[in-house]
């Protein structure tokens, strides 16, 4: 008789880092396609630039550190970081923005801390914050969804715009930003924030042309694309539900309470979840296995706290969106969270108070 003895861990599917990273990249595809459809080919140009920069940077630094760079490139982690950064920045930002950002993410945030597995902060988000602080003008030039604009830049236009600042027909970025009625368009979060600052109520803010109901045209499709990819990742057991669940619940709870208190001055939970990058952040960014919490209880706390900070910074902070800031704040808290949420070791009872260690 043949008894099959298996010792722990009892995981049957053996995936290496490269496969996991590749699956995350595949899960990003629906969101990226929708983003390209609604906001132009600039997204793809940025991704191409970012990936090239990331691979070159990673290979150079690993060569300097005398490590095997071929294996490190094949684990796709640098490429994933590059893609996440590229889809977070405005699609028509100048080329040097993404190049500086990706270099910073790989060289400073990842490799200087010791490479994959040692970085304290999420590389893509640290680089995003660096770019936002350094180049506020370039990092806030979002275009409205293409159905609202007078000029719809194609792929060639996108390449021209990223490298020269003008489309192939000679339209500047400011002209491309202009909508059919001649008004410049902001992102949904920006529009509501400005509206509220000008004394409009939340309902009046939603009357702007970029909204369809309480959802930004184009933006909620993109968010839905990332939601789809995220649900696939949970189903494929690449990520657990704890971080995204905690994060969405955190934001929705804060938003819900404030919305019930004063619906004129605070946006609804639905608005907060589907506008901005909350869904992308919840499923793809906060779940970075290196810089996130590692226990299940800790993951819920980590996610919920990010959700809380997202709401606080979006509502009362100086910036319209806050995924990057919130993720970085909670990255710093991860050692503390992990320390206090250590699971009970099998065979040990819970330590009671006063018992010697």
């Amino acid at each position, binding site marked *: 008789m043949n008894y099959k003895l298996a010792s722990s861990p009892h995981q049957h599917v053996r995936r290496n880092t490269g496969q996991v990273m590749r699956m995350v990249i595949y899960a990003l595809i629906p969101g990226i396609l929708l983003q390209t459809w609604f906001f132009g080919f600039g997204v793809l140009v940025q991704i191409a630039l970012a990936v090239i920069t990331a691979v070159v940077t990673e290979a150079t630094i690993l060569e300097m550190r005398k490590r095997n760079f071929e294996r490190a490139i094949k684990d796709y982690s640098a490429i994933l970081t590059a893609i996440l950064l590229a889809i977070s920045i405005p699609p028509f930002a100048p080329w040097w923005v993404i190049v*500086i950002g990706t270099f910073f993410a790989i060289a*400073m945030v990842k490799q*200087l801390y010791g490479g994959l597995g040692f970085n304290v902060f999420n590389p893509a988000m640290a680089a995003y914050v*660096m770019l936002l*602080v*350094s*180049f*506020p*003008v*370039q990092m806030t030039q979002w275009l409205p969804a293409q159905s609202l604009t007078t000029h719809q830049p194609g792929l060639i236009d996108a390449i021209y715009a990223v490298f020269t600042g003008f489309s192939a027909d000679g339209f500047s970025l400011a002209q491309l930003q202009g909508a059919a009625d001649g008004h410049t368009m902001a992102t949904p979060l920006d529009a509501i924030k400005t509206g509220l600052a000008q004394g409009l109520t939340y309902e009046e803010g939603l009357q702007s042309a970029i909204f369809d109901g309480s959802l930004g045209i184009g933006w909620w499709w993109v968010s839905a694309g990332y939601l789809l990819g995220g649900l696939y990742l949970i189903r494929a057991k690449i990520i657990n539900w704890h971080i995204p669940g905690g994060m969405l619940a955190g934001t929705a709870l804060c938003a819900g309470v404030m919305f019930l208190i004063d619906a004129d001055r605070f946006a609804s939970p639905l608005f907060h979840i589907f506008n901005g990058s909350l869904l992308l952040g919840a499923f793809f960014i906060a779940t970075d296995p290196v810089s996130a919490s590692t226990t299940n209880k800790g993951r819920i706390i980590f996610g919920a706290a990010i959700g809380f900070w997202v709401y606080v910074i979006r509502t009362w902070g100086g910036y319209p969106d806050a995924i990057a800031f919130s993720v970085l704040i909670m990255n710093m808290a991860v050692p503390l969270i992990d320390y206090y949420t250590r699971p009970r070791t099998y065979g040990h009872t819970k330590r009671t108070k006063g018992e010697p260690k």
Partner: protein
Amino acid sequence: MNEFKQLSWQGLWKNNPALVQLLGLCPLLAVTATVTNGLGLGLATTLVLIGSNATVSIIRNLVPNEIRIPIFVMIIAAFVTVVQLLMNAYTYELYQALGIFIPLIVTNCAIIGRAEAYASKNPIGYAAFDGLMMGLGFTVVLVLLGAMRELLGYGTLFDGANLLLGDWASSLKVTIFTTDSPFLLAILPPGAFLGMGLLIAAKNLLDKRFESMFAAKQEAKVVQRARVTAET
């Protein structure tokens, strides 16, 4: 190694107040947005260090041990006031650019640290020289950090050097590149922290290189042992 050599080595490299002792970080990080600011504050700190170290050394046998710290602080404050008034008179624009950080030299831990650790125990010649070397070590780091940040942030070097050195120095300005969108991170305080970290890392790297070179040389001297046992 004689004492002066030892003091120079300690101040400039091995025990550098900014890179190793990590003292006086507040002005170090706050004012080094340009080379000129860094150099100005570094020189001011050096002057104060020499003066306070010399004075503390002269009176070291007269000061009761229990109240030495307040006395040192008053001496340092007096010298800072002198430097502040001098800068106000002769380099007014730089004085305005450095602002609160000139009076704050009083609280620079590097100065009181040297007064307590070295000047209060050693004769005046050594103490003044220690002040000079520690001050120069601090200044070098301020200038390096200022250069890194100015180069990345504005694309220039020695911009505004005429504020410190007189009109002839305006020709020192080097423009590496011009940009409409300055790299704000380098100019803002976070850039100072990052730059400081990189400088410390570079120093540690150089130290390790020297050490391994030194160790390699030592190993080369293999001692031939004499055989004391018979072969077989």
